[in-house]
């Protein structure tokens, strides 16, 4: 493969709105809230931006298509703006556009913005949407929890683990994220919960109960990226650098081929392989200090620990129960509460994950700060297990 973008792009400013049910805010308000923080953090004038990428997923429901929502909301100075969408990897896709533009030398400063305004639908859960004129003719009228619940049934069958035992490990995933969310001021859900609460919660899609599902939130997050040279010119000595940024969509294998067992996500494995190669990472368990993975549902995070190489096959439930992914564990996961508690405004999520890694690497994570983290990982799984887009990014603190 080509050399990739390792160490070619520095993040010099990030911002994130408070996530939650922002009844008082539209998408323009949320974007501005994130942007003002990022631009102050970067220490540059808005007019120095050369281009911007807007990531928003549920366009029919809220923000509307094209570059206009971002350009209008921030009154951007007549620069190229591109809207991107790639399911739950949308925010990461926006970052990819901005990072690639900088790495290519086309821009000195680029903005990646992700936003979603989900709480204008009038009902709980994610909006209903078409899957395509052909897919609608045959695919089940699924919901995200129902689609991800599939992982649990097949994981339990594949590894011969009893569902109550799997449920207990899944419950720990949520309990851990609520512990972290309680320490995160901008998070949507900030109350601690107990394993018993998780296990006794009403069923949403068997075997997922309410506490196995992430929040449905409004929010925006953004990053300003530049070259290491420009970062140095701005007086930075250490900067958060992109070490790898990879993205792999399904090609139909999981949906149509008998070979997929339904208990893992091949796209995550492929994206991780590519990202680890791009960053020169050999042992993720030893080298990754913090990670934000796509915990849309507790079972997703569990399966991902194996797909990303942090747990051996069939061992994720045990590693989880042993605390390997707790804030004080071997590979702290979702230190800001994750999708589960920080919230999941779809288009913003990839950038919100990067925001937490950025803050951890810079030592700005407050009560939940990890001891001297060096390398952070973010991961998105957009779509559903048999038809998805996976992204894996690695970020590290380097001298510029």
């Amino acid at each position, binding site marked *: 493969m080509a050399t990739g973008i390792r160490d070619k792009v520095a993040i010099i400013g990030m911002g994130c709105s408070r996530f939650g049910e922002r009844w008082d805010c539209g998408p323009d308000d949320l974007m501005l809230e994130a942007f003002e923080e990022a631009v102050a953090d970067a220490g540059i004038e808005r007019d120095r931006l050369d281009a911007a990428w807007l990531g928003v997923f549920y366009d029919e429901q809220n923000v509307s298509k094209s570059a206009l929502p971002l350009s209008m909301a921030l009154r951007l100075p007549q620069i190229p703006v591109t809207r991107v969408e790639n399911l739950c990897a949308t925010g990461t896709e926006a970052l990819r556009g901005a990072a690639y533009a900088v790495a290519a030398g086309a821009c000195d400063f680029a903005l990646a913005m992700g936003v979603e305004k989900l709480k204008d639908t009038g009902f709980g859960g994610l909006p209903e949407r078409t899957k395509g004129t052909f897919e609608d*003719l045959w695919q089940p*009228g699924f919901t995200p929890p129902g689609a991800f619940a599939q992982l649990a049934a097949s994981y339990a069958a594949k590894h011969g683990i009893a569902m109550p035992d799997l449920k207990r490990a899944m419950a720990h995933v949520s309990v851990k994220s609520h512990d972290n969310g309680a320490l995160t001021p901008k998070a949507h859900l900030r109350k601690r919960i107990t394993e018993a609460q998780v296990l006794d919660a009403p069923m949403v*899609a068997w075997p997922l109960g309410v506490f196995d599902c992430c929040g449905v939130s409004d929010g925006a997050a953004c990053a300003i990226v530049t070259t290491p040279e420009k970062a140095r010119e701005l007086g930075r000595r250490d900067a958060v650098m992109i070490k790898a940024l990879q993205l792999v969509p399904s090609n139909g294998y999981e949906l149509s081929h008998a070979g997929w067992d339904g208990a893992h996500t091949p796209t995550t494995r492929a994206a991780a392989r590519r990202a680890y190669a791009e960053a020169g990472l050999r042992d993720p368990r030893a080298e990754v200090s913090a990670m934000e993975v796509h915990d849309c549902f507790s079972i997703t995070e569990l399966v991902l620990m194996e797909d990303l190489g942090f747990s051996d096959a069939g061992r994720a439930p045990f590693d989880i129960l042993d605390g390997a992914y707790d804030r004080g564990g071997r590979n702290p996961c979702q230190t800001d509460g994750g999708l589960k508690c920080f919230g999941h405004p779809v288009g913003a999520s990839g950038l919100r994950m990067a925001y937490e890694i950025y803050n951890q690497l810079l030592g700005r994570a407050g009560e939940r700060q990890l001891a001297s983290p060096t390398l952070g990982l973010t991961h998105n799984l957009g779509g559903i297990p048999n038809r998805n887009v996976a992204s894996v990014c690695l970020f590290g603190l380097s001298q510029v």
Partner: protein
Amino acid sequence: MPGIAAFGACIPRLRLARSTIGAAMGWANKALAAGRGERSICSWDEDSLTMAVEAARDALPSMETRAGVGQVTFASTTHPFADRSNAAVLATALGLADGVHAQDAAGSQRAGTSALAQSLAACGAPGARPTLVVAADRRLAKPGSDQEAAYGHGATAVLATPGDGLATLLAARHAAADFVDHYRASGEPFDYTLEERWTREAGWFELVPGTLRALFEDAGVAPADVHHAVIPAPAATARRVAGLAGLREAALADTLSERCGDTGCGHPLLMLGAVLERAAPGDYVLLVGFGQGVDALLFRVTDSVRGFRPRRGVEACLAVRREETSYTRFLSHCGLLPVEFGMRAERDNRTAMTVLWRKREGITGFTGGRCRDCGTVQFPRSRVCVNPECRRTDTQDPQRLAESTGRIKTFTEDWLAYSARPPLVYGNVAFEEGGNAFIEFADFEPGEAQVGMPVRFVFRLKDVDRVRGFRRYFWKAAPAGSA
């Protein structure tokens, strides 16, 4: 002589006990409180068309058995479409050849027997090919009406053949009479039904015996020699008709009223199927259809009857049952109770007809692809093979999957998704031949699905487009043993 070469049935699995109807509606109609037995009811995703497909598949289980079918007639008084050939959907779902003559028949409770008589007559012509007749009804009835208890939902398929078949036609007689014992105006949901005593005495007793006399004269058979008489009337009425026509009372076929109710224009054929399942070679079988006139057909059973087995048959269909204990859920399935299903039920189910046309073989005919180069079976069929080791272009032959079986690979019971019968159950299913389908399940109650469980595929309603009055159909995975 033309005859019947095959038959099959579809009785929806759900049954509503008449005592359940009585308990709910006895306050309005005291007679309902005395109801015995049970009636068959469609789930939300079954209608005349889906039952017709399943009945035809029961009669002709393999693609080989369907190969020679030249014509298919779909008789119903409750076709889902008034102007869109329901029979063409049926033919596509069955995978019949493009040159098949598909037509709908309708208009009375004789639609099924008349279609069969016509098909048998056509089979007498030189060069005639086998003709499939499918009769199905899903009649609605007002809550609290006698019809609500009397009616059932179901479908029957009969294959008419130029050869003698299992039962050879000896004679047929017909009578037309605008005897309005009931009617249903176009676009109206319910029948308007006249007094039962008048129907019996001025209808059955006056109109039927004369037609039967002429039939027996034509055939040169004495009525008393008939072994099985299909008279789709209430038992007491049928007994009196038998007496008037010279038939033995013992020859009267079971009306199945306590097991599934009167399934409409397919009901005489359903009773006929039940008869053929236990008839002996040489038996005479009388078939009567009644509805603004009379159809009367006389058959003689041949030796071939011993060799024929539908996939499942009438008796087995009747045996596979699940009691619907909720009267209000029955009403909701009939569209007679405006249940609040939440905003998710507002999802726009517009169908792109251009896409449905392009993909008709895949969707309506549930046909995937098999790669000629690597043998990989896949759904949906695509230009490029999905096997990562192959990925060749334009190497896939059509592979019909509707008759396949599979095993559940993953599933969920989704209480959040919209379903007219929550939860929505769906998952990934691995086909016996290889390949995977992400598909909705049918006929699984909560707690029944398990990873690894065998499934078969059934033709069902997938979505209803309430805005545009369209219904779209696809296949669903059902428990292998039950459907």
